[in-house]
């Protein structure tokens, strides 16, 4: 062995993946399949919601004094008088077109009610998620960088205190405080409603702040972890600039780990949105759902619940696929697994 290098030998070992094709692509396809299954289950759940209720939903809506005839009429309108399976068939074919009948309350079609609000919902949730990502990862990494190796213990204390505090304040309290300070006192933003364009800022912040606190905590721990890894030492041995060490070596690895650990944070934004929309009278799907639940407006409840649930599922899938796009290993592993 030595001087004569084996000329034929150098073959790059192939990826340890049994089948051909990009693992990322395979993972995405499987994830899409899983997504459809979950959406289907959610659809069954919304179908069953009105039908497993103790008592007669039509009677619930119309009250004890309504005539039996009126109740029977409503049952027919809700499609509750048909055989069970044909009810489901009917419901599904209509749900596919987002057709859930007419609202009891506004007498408009549920489709138009949903259409009027989906844009607002996406705007609010989208902005909130952007804030959560940027601030959560940014603050967490900053705190991690400052407190690595036990430096700046006071920064660590302040960080832990404030993330703990903001992470445990109920969403509607946060929303109300923001409204009190920035809308009522400072008058920078409107107190409620959807206009002007800046009206989205306060509700988005109210949703984002508690989640930023949670994500920043996770990211800090992950950053400390990544900074201790050998590949960061390699990067240091190459004397890369601090900026590129953080951008190329720390950030991608922190993000994948943090996103994997905190995948549910993004779906939870939908939950906070439901509450925060009530505070700011933000005309989104969450507000519609809450109002309709209280009004026993079942067709709208079905439609709004299904749409929100689909949003949750889609957000999760996007996070998953995003993580696997950034972290090739997870895609390869999970592509095989799922």
């Amino acid at each position, binding site marked *: 062995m030595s001087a004569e290098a084996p000329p034929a030998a150098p073959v790059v070992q192939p990826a340890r993946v049994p089948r051909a094709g990009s693992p990322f692509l395979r993972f995405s396809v499987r994830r899409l399949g899983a997504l459809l299954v979950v959406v289907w289950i959610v659809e069954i759940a919304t179908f069953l919601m009105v039908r497993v209720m103790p008592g007669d939903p039509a009677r619930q809506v119309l009250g004890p004094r309504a005539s039996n005839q009126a109740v029977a009429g409503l049952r027919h309108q809700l499609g509750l008088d048909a055989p069970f399976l044909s009810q489901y068939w009917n419901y599904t074919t209509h749900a596919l077109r987002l057709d859930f009948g007419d609202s009891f309350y506004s007498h408009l079609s549920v489709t138009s009610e949903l259409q009027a609000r989906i844009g607002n919902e996406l705007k609010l949730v989208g902005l909130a998620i952007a804030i959560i990502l940027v601030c959560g990862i940014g603050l967490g990494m900053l705190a991690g960088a400052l407190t690595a190796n036990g430096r700046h213990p006071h920064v660590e204390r302040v960080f832990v205190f404030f993330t703990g505090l903001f992470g445990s304040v*109920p969403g509607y309290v946060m929303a109300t405080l923001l409204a009190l300070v920035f809308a009522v006192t400072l008058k920078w933003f409107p107190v409620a409603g959807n206009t002007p364009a800046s009206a989205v800022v306060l509700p988005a912040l109210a949703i984002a702040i508690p989640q930023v606190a949670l994500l920043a905590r996770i990211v800090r721990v992950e950053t400390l972890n990544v900074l201790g890894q050998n590949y960061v030492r*390699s990067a240091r041995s190459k004397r890369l600039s601090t900026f590129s060490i953080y951008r190329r070596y720390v950030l991608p690895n922190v993000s994948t780990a943090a996103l994997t650990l905190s995948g549910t944070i993004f779906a939870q934004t939908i939950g906070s949105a439901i*509450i925060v929309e009530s505070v700011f009278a933000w005309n989104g799907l969450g507000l519609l759902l809450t109002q309709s639940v209280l009004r026993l407006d079942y067709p709208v409840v079905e439609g709004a619940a299904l749409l929100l649930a689909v949003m949750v599922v889609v957000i999760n899938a996007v996070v998953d696929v995003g993580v696997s796009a950034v972290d090739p290993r997870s895609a390869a592993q999970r592509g095989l697994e799922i």
Partner: protein
Amino acid sequence: MAATTATPAATPTVPARGRHPAARAFFTAPGGIVGLTIVLALVVLAIIGPIVWGPAAHKTDLSIAYQSSSSAHPLGTDSLGRDILARTLAATRLTLLLGLSAAAISMALGFALGTTIAALAPRARGFGRRAIEVFMSFPPILLALFLVTIIGTGATGAVIAIGIGAAPAFARLSENCATSVSSKEFVASARASGVGRPRLIGRYLLPNMSEPLVLAGLAYFAGAIIDISGLDFLGVGVQTPQFDWGTELTTGVQAIYTTPWAAVAPAAAITITGIAIVYLGEAAARSLNPRLWHSSKGKRRRRVSADDGAARSAAPPTGDGSAAPGDEPGDDAVLRVDGLDVVVPGPGGPRKLVRGVSLALRPGEALGIVGETGSGKTLTALSLAGLVPHPLETHAERIELGGVDPRSLTQRQAARLYGTYIAMIFQDPMSSMNPSARVGAQLVDGARRHRSLSRKAARAEAKERLAEVRIGDGERAMKRYPYQFSGGMQQRLMIAMGLMARPRVLIADEPTTALDVTVQAQVLDVLRDVKAREGMSIVLISHNLGVVNQLCDRIVVMYHGSIVEEGPRERLLRNPLHPYTQGLMNSILELSPDGSRTEVAGIRGRPPASGEELAGCPFADRCPLAFDRCRRERPELVDLGDGDRVACFAAGGGLSEAAA
């Protein structure tokens, strides 16, 4: 939240004085006492609250509605003129009961579901896990609105809804715990020794799962209080005439623009309760987990204490930097350090992990540094590369990279000097490469920074370097990720990465230790090639004299932080002078692959703890030749001429007399 304590814990060293260590850990945890006190106060309030303040809480008087703080109503009154403080205090019981019930539902359902899934066959378990993950992602509020539609508004609906909403997360935790505990050795051995199933579950599995589950339960309790108050706020939770903190907070919040103080009491109650429960949980975690009893915060202390050993302060006649670096490699040295110390600051004063090391590396020379674990060889290597990790500190009389002392440069200049002059490769190639970046990007980033190459030029050069380390299809290799290569390939990638800097010195710290024997040979071949072709100097760190023998021209042997012997390879291997080197040689013989494991002297005993201050020679206790002086006085490294140096009272004479 408690799950994020991912740091490895040190083994407890000092026995606790006084109280039981678990109790001590609890009370010294930040917030432990505070959390416990508040929670106890809440329990008392829950019991007496409705009895003492119930009547006042219900007394309406519209004439005093919306009043601010007064002596009769310290926190003011609400829209019906009821005393807010009294209502908040009286609401404690219902609030806590609702929270507890919801948490109990989550835990019961989640535990049943999780343990069932854990008991399933692997395939079904995988399916169950993913189903749980899907449900976990649904926000509890959405599930709650869903269930409230079915069950109807009210406290019962809210509790059931929140309870079910958090159950999947608890199920996953239970499943994780059950799976990991049941795969532990002690469970397997209990099973093997015929412990019955009920007893196995009751005595072996459950006790070891209880800690994380109880902690999570506390967190769910706090979370449930907040979630239920959210439902109250939406109007689908607790309904009048019942009231809890959530309803009180809601009425307060709705009037906040006119009477801001009305929301203060219930908001504070909810927040304080939540924080107290979290504190209690963290303190409880500490006291339930014996591994956390002694180490409190930060990795720093831990890492230091992991080096262990009480610093015994003796009069230290430390053999510091006495011998000048072995003779001639005079001024042509590409790398030179004199009197290098690496110290770790500690409570008992700084301890020296490397003491008085002097080295000089000639151009094109391969220098091997050998020694046992803890001998300071890796720290020496890291100091040469300027990479000693915080909180360790390096002190040296002289450091020169090609005649330039990096300490005299600005940070930026020093970075450039190190980045182009020295490249370093490490023991574990897999973990030394960024897992989320392609190999190509990692190959070129250093060169692009320090040598201002264009992307294209850098990639072209990277291809050449890959060919030098015998990776043929460079283009393809650069598009791959590190995990797609075998261990030997990865180490060759690391070498190529080092070569990209066009360094004068390559420092390799145990480059072959993690590899198979055949792959080791390949990597050493590549190093030898590189040395011959580029005229590069190499410092090879290894615990294995055999590996060093294959590559190095000169060998340095380290023991307890100092150099004990140095010499040309031929001489040192043929005629080792220091008893420690002789012992090392015997160890090689012992491990020789011919299967004849003849009992050789080897080295008996263990080395002293690193950093420990000793009066005499650190090897004295293990040395067959030791005499009185060895235990009193530390031998200095004596120059014997011809590049031979040795630190031993017993050995040095032989060679110099022979030479004379």
